[in-house]
């Protein structure tokens, strides 16, 4: 009985929340500050021509720097939650032919498309995060097709790859401190710097996202 009462109370609360917020949305005035003209006015000196990329990597670059730091912390938290005694994983026997065959065709195409997305980010929707997500999906697909073993504790090379994006971003940010503000790119070199940051970000993000899956996948997952 009390469970039903609790459920009813929560559902009523949620419905009231929807009603109140929807009511507010209908009477909400247009925002007093319009950021679009500001973005378009400064787009020329941002180094890229796509406004979302300009906001992500230049005008609000600090957000993106902290974002990759959050990703890194999340991966460290996942690694810390793994059981310490997990043995090195091996590629188990292949029981299905379809997935490996599909993966062998799909993964090179995914790699190519990730490179395209990374390159396209400068002037149309795309960029490091989309490319990184696609690369991570390719790695996960390889593992699911049993063509690649799950990852055990990261070695030096993998650790380097995981932190490269954050360190390069942080290094460039620190180097630009001399110019006055954090992440204030000189307009002449902004495009080059953004491309450098995006490339390393894409690699690191792919490894971090894939690691969230592949490190966890190595321990068998059966209750003790």
């Amino acid at each position: 009985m009390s469970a039903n009462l609790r459920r009813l109370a929560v559902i009523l609360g949620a419905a009231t929340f929807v009603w109140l917020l929807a009511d507010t949305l209908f009477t909400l005035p247009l925002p007093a500050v319009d950021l679009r003209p500001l973005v378009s006015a400064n787009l020329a000196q941002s180094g890229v021509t796509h406004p979302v990329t300009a906001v992500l990597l230049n005008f609000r670059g600090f957000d993106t720097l902290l974002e990759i730091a959050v990703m890194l912390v999340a991966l460290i938290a996942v690694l810390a939650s793994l059981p310490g005694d997990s043995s090195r994983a091996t590629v188990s026997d292949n029981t299905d032919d379809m997935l490996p065959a599909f993966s062998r065709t799909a993964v090179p195409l995914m790699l190519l498309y990730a490179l395209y997305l990374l390159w396209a980010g400068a002037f149309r929707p795309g960029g490091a995060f989309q490319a990184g997500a696609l690369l991570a999906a390719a790695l996960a697909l390889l593992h699911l097709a049993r063509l690649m073993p799950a990852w055990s504790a990261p070695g030096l090379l993998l650790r380097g790859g995981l932190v490269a994006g954050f360190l390069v971003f942080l290094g460039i940010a620190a180097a630009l401190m001399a110019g006055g503000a954090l992440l204030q790119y000189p307009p002449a070199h902004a495009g080059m710097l953004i491309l450098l940051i995006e490339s390393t970000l894409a690699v690191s993000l792919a490894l971090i996202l894939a690691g969230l899956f592949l490190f966890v996948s190595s321990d068998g997952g059966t209750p003790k």
Partner: protein
Amino acid sequence: MTSELLFAVTGVILFAIGAAGTILLANLLRRVLAFNIMGSGACVVLVSLAQRNGIADPVPQAMVLTGIVVAVAATGVALALTRRLHQLTGECETTSSVEHD
């Protein structure tokens, strides 16, 4: 009612569904999913409100893009913890809400 407001109200409904699910569901996997639905609702509200005057504003779009990636990371941590709990105890239910169906 413009289509942007329709999107925004949809986002509010998604958020409410996710919030109710986060409170009511006992299974941790479902809770993580419900929490993700909450986050998606917030993103939909943010993006749709930003394009009410016709043209999309890139600043909220970039913020939502950042938010999605952070949400993926948080989900990964939540799932890893759930999995660890399952390894240690053999179940993935919270003990506080035992009066589930």
